[in-house]
């Protein structure tokens, strides 16, 4: 109702993009689940909050990338940038015995600035508490999993877990915002170029 006026009460964040693919050395036939995690003051207006990709296998070519090219499209409205949406991705795939096990969790904030962004999310999986569990887990096809993948978007209680890093997922975002500046939130100049994130900076080596 108020949107048309000069004094908007909400701002909009439109997220387009795609989960481009992943790099999981040693694993194949993976699929990816994603969901957005956001704070109290955020509400999705359109688009899918969660989704699941197709299973993809590696190309026989030299490139070891798994390609999903799974589109993301969601619009959020909010009045408060606190609790800015995060994209949580979790990758699953079959193990040697064909059991579906988790291959990685990861999360990244949806970029703040309008424009195109590519994020390479380093992924990790929880480790079994005991070595024996690792073995039996492997035998029975039951790896430790997070009770809720959204855990990786929060910091609370993470100190209790041990994780192993494993693979990367590349996501590209196209961000459009509306009324952010009007509400007094300046996120800086829109980055036209592909501004690599801190995470992708060091992970590009693995990519190539």
């Amino acid at each position, binding site marked *: 109702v108020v949107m048309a006026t000069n*004094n908007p*009460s*909400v*701002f909009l964040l439109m997220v387009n993009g795609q989960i481009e693919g992943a790099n999981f050395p040693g694993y194949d036939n993976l699929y990816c689940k994603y969901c957005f995690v956001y704070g*109290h*003051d*955020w*509400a999705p207006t359109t688009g899918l909050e969660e989704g699941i990709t197709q299973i993809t296998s590696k190309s026989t070519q030299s490139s070891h990338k798994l390609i999903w090219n799974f589109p993301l499209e969601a619009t959020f409205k*909010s*009045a*408060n940038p606190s609790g800015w949406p995060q994209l949580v991705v979790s990758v699953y795939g079959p193990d040697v015995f064909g059991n579906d096990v988790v291959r990685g969790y990861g999360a990244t904030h949806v970029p703040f600035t309008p424009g195109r962004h590519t994020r390479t999310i380093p992924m990790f999986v*929880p480790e*079994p*508490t*005991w070595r*024996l*569990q690792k073995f*039996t*887990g492997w035998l*029975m096809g*039951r*790896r*430790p*999993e*997070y*009770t*809720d993948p*959204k*855990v990786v978007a929060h910091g*609370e*209680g*993470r*100190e*209790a*877990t041990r994780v192993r890093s494993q693979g990367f997922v590349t996501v590209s975002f196209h961000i459009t915002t509306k009324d952010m500046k009007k*509400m007094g939130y300046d996120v800086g100049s829109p980055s036209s170029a592909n501004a690599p994130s801190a995470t992708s900076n060091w992970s590009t080596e693995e990519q190539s």
Partner: protein
Amino acid sequence: MEEPEGSDEDPGERLRRTFRAQREKSKKIRDVEGISSIQQHSADDGRTEQTDESVVPSKSGKLSQKGLSSRKHPSATSQHLDDSVTRRLEAKLREAISKVEEEQKDAPLEPASRLQSLRDRDAAIRFDREVDADRVERQDVPADLSTRVKFREAARKVIKVHPNAEEAYTFFTHNFEPDPLDESEKMSRKKKKTQRTSEEEGDGEDGEEEVKEGDHDIESESEQAPLVQNEDEDLFVLDQLPEDVLVVKKAEYVGYKQRVARESELLFTPSSQPVPTSCKLPENMKPRYLEDEGLYVGERPPVSWTNERIMENRLLQMAEGMKWFGDDGRTLALPNPIKESSTRPPLQHIEGDLDPALQTVFRKLVMSKNANLYVTGAADPEGDYQLDVDVSGLIFSHHPLFSREHVLGARLAQLYDQYLSRQHNNLTEHLTDKLRGLRRALQNMLEIHGERDLTPPMQQRISEYSLEVRNTRQLRDNEQEKDRTLLKQLVKVWKEVKTLRELQRFTNTPYKLFLRRENVDRAADEQEHEGEILTEIVELQAESEEDYQRKLAEYKKQLEQWKLWRRKQKAKRKKRKKKKKGQSHDDTDEDEEEQEMSESESPTEEGPSKPEAPERPDFRSTEEWVREKASRIRRKPGEAILIPDLTASGNITATALCPRTEVARREDVSKRSLFIKILYNDKEVSRTDSRALNADFRVHFGQIFNLKIVNCPQSINLQVFEQIGLSSSLLAQVFVPVPQPTVVTGNAPLEEFEFSSNQRVMFDHEGVGSDVPLSFDADGSNKVTLLTSGKVSCCVSWGNGEDGAPLAPPVSQHLVRKHGGLGHLDAVTYLGASGLYDMKKIAEWAKQSRLDPNDPKNASIMQLLKVASSGEVTTPEYFRLEHLQEEFNFVTDEEIEKNKRFRLLRLREQGVPEFRNYKFVPAHENGISNEVFKDYEKRLKEEQIIDAKEYLDTHRALVAKNLQKIRESVIHRFLHAKRNYHVSDLVVEEEIPSIRFLGIELFKWAQPRRPLKPQRKERKKVTAQNLSDGDIKLLVNIIRAYEVPVRRPQSNKAAQSSQAAIQGSDWYLSQAQLRPFVEVSFQRTVLQTSSAEGPNPCWNEELQLPFRAPNGDYSTANLQAVKDEVFINIFDEVVHKSGESDKDRGQSFHASVEKHWLGSVKIPFSTIYSQSKIDGTFKVNTPAVLLGYNSERRHAPSGAYDILLSQSEGTFLTLFITIEPQLVPGESLRDKIKEVKFDSMQFDSQEDEGLLQASDRFESEATQNFPDRPCITTVVDLSGKTVFITRYIQALNPPPELLEVSTQEPAALIARYVSLIPFLPDRVSYTGACGLWSTCDQFLSFLAGDEEEHAVLLCNYFLSMGKKAWLIIGTAIPEGPTAYVLTLEQSRYLIWNPSSGQSYSQYDTFCPLQTIGCLVNASNVWFNVQQYTSPTRISFDTTKAKLWKQFFSRAFCHPGLSSVQPETLMYRRGDKAAAAELQDRIEKILKEKIMEWRPRRPTRWNRYCTTTLKHFLPKLEQSRGADVTEGHRHQLQSQLGDNKISGFPLNLPFSGIQPIIEAVYSTGVHHIQAPSAEFALAVYVHPYPNNVLSVWVYLASLIRS
């Protein structure tokens, strides 16, 4: 395209192959299309163009990459690659060039094609324009050609890499002819294409030529045509391999000998044979060895002989080789020490000749302002400083273990050292020489000038000389005296040592003093001596003469003065005399004289006294004095010179020969060892090895410690430790100064630092001890007190780096630090961070450091000081950690309070329940309505002013307030416990299968399959947090009920009339008169089963009730806090038929269904959640009286236990309740609290540490072996302290009122009293969870508590009544973990449920207690280690250790723990007036409520019935519902006549009004819809002591029949 570096293949070859493939492709296309028309050609042409275009850039890209990479990595392989590429390219070039040249010939003949594309024309124009330009240098390349340009550049780079200088030269210098090469080439190509009929080979070249274009541009001229000799067409066929172009030749070989011969012309191999010296020296010269001549020769640097010889041989070959050899025939290897001029050759040119740019300019040194501000090397990555601490050794000059001989020996050694150092300095000799020299000089002077008159300066000099002589003589005499006494002392001490050795008959020290006698020539010596004395006498005489003269002169002067003064006096007197003469003439002159004398001597008369004439010096005494002195301080003339020589060559007596005390001392010595700790800036950084103390009290360490330092060195401290066995004690500390930066390892000498210790040590053996008076004299006089002392020889220096650079801080900084300037400059280091808040200190510091007030850096400090000195600012008395906090407050606190948005955000952050899940806080304040806070504020208000209506009496209001506070503190206390996450909270993982489990798994494989015997499978557990509304269902499986009260046949007339019909089947009918069903209500959802028949109905129905978490929060914590209860009510379905329909069947008749409440079971959700399932048979709470119903009595056996057994009578309901899906029960807070408790155990308990550990052990052992048996040994009291559980058990007096009533079994009454104390409704979430136990008096004053507190109170009451009672810690249905009370009555055990007041016999099957974990009484805790846990199957004999594991056993005795309970409990009598008041209020409220619940129909109250009921209630209270039913019913019946009555009394402990309303509501009385229905409601409140109230509500409905 493949990467060239990816394969071993020759990249050129690869390139070529690609081209070939390309060409073949295009050829194919042509073949298919044919060549029919020009049009086709042109299209075709376009396409080939395109393919060409597409190919070229990529190739060029590759090439340029290639070039770049080869430039970047000039490694061997790439070089090789490079070369081969260049070679290939060259070959290609040659081909291309020849081709072009051939075409060029054709070019003029053919006109440009009209079909030329626009693009090509463009190109043509371009080339036309640029034909004249220097193509190589051209810069303005059109944009569309950029790729080609790139290629060209790449090619250029390739050329540059190619090191053909000649080529390069021609390339740059060649005068390029205006050769329109490209154009012509292109044109020719175009032309060819249009013309082409069969000439297909040419096409292939096109692509290639495109590629080669760049190269061609550049190199076509430089690479001259002759490179390609045969312009054969074959050359351009790419199929030709390089072999065709190359010529294979035999490698050139030069024979070995020939080569050697050739080489020998150029090469010289110096031999390593020694060169004869004669060759190295000029002819006819003999080698001269400077060493032999006594000259100093430095040490030659070490060079191996072979190398030296080779060098010599080489030098000899040189023209001027001879100058390299020294006089000794060896190469000059050392600098000439006496060379005066600089070795460095002088600069050839004068400065003026220098290029002005190269002139050196003098710049004044500028001090960096900030350089000194920082601590050296602290943050400097280059500040790599190292201190080398060399601890060489340690010598004791006194040690407590010294024997007397050692003491003397040490003294001797010391004296000898002194002697040696004196001898070394030889001051006496020096002074004697000086004296001699001075005397001679004086003599000379006098001799030369003596006869003539001396000039005043000469006189001056002479007197100076003589003064000097005097002083020097005195000094020499002193020194001589010292020498003499030292020698004497030395001899004396040595004598003492000798006597001591003789006395003790053994030797401890190896010292031996020899006195060497050096004989002198007696005559000469005497002469010298005499001469010396004479000279001295003369001198002294001269001096005293001079002195006398001076004194005499002074005397004379004084005398003169005196005389003058006297004369004046006389004159005065004469005047006076004259006056007197006139007066009297008797006075004679003598008198006058006398008078004069007296006058002059009179003290009143001031004036200098008459000076005395100085004595003439007595020369004889002088001579005597001189002689005496000489004999004292000098050896006698002719006496031999004694030279002491101290050696340590003596033998030490073997230990075996020593007396016992000495042996003990030596043993003690051998036990001792010493080590040194090195402290840097008061921190221990290293320590030496421990070395044994030698018998000579010397310790050698010889260790060097390299300290890599980061902090500025403040102090270096060596601590000497003495070790005896394992204990070590600090002996002394030695502070070593921080070395100057110039002191670097290698040039720093070892220094000795003395230390001493004032420790008092005494021994009972030969050791003399320390700080103990000691005497060597026989009579014990001359006591000396010796302290442990010694010398550490060590050296601290700055380390050397690997490259030899000193690892010392820069000198300037160091100096600054040395002067303490660093501290002055940096306020923080000077004062410490905290000092910054002390204005005085700052001011002091500022004054000391002389801050520059003009420096803008200091502006703020100066300002501050100005204010501070004016006295306006006082030092704050508080400490503020973040003194800049205010800077970060973006608005003031008030503003945050005022702003609705901020407030909302804050409340949400704080997790206030109303806002915890508040979504979408608006961006602006005006978007928030005040409504948002209404609920919250209302709640706050309620919390503050406890609603009087709710609690009805002020005491309870107060208690509620108190409880609120306690709860808050509990919440805060455990807030961080909640945050304590576990892996299982976050990660789902498989449990480790135990061996047993694995075994069973394996066994299962072998087991026969039994599909007809399904096994129960564990459900998968779901964590609560990812659930949402509607996901969770509560499954209630109502199985059956036992002994439901049956309807009593109506005793009205209608019933009587049909009695005959009934008579035959009375039993059957009476059974049939019951259609019970079960209604389950949860969270306002009500579901019911179908109705069954009879008093023992079986439903076996599953009801699914949806569950919604409050606020939509499904987190574990929130679920645990859900306070909702599941109400399970049993109703009787009564169908009233209205309308007579007997006659005409089939006619419809009205039937109204009523439900009559029979009983209820309440199960809190939290129990279900924590238990995950509830399975069992429960006793239904049935009202004491159920009007119109008869409870089916069991055939009670007559016997002694009748009463006891009657307790287990009643209605029972079998239930199974669970949650679907199964939720992971949040780890109960208890465990987490335990962790927290253990963390903070040390300071949170007054219990003994050992006890706590033991209890911890006991509990963990218990849970390990029997995980399902609860075991509690320690609990937390209300103040949060851990208390041992037995302290809670103590006999306490029950209210005396209850004991007075003798009519009843007192135990039951007391149990009832305890059960009437309400449960704490608000603490549902914390029951058991936090294990907070209040003491009984606290419990009674709060009037609220959980099962444990009830149980403790009951147990204590029983104990005071003389029963044997225990507290049972166990689990029960439905409470879960709980506490019961066990009593021993007449050799039978009774189990009491403190919350209901009921008792069960041990063998009662319906006892809700399921598991018994442990028993507790005041003296011990017993843990159940029997096979079973159920009370029916275990033995309660706690004396059997096999069955019950004791906490306090013989091994760990009961430490006599005192009770935390009060001595006695004080009771207030029940307040009847207040109870009556409350009664009225409850009645009023309930009536209002019931009317409210029946909004559609009028509610009529039967007053008559009400009053009747009211009379019954007190009786019920007295009898607690026993055996009053019959009479009661009859009475009612008679009073109310025809009315059909159904009703029941409810009994509740009073905790508030809300539970009463709930209970009434759940009975569903208000549902009666019959229009004629009337109601009756009576309330009775019975007061028990201490405000414990029992509330009775009698509800009845009357239907007029």
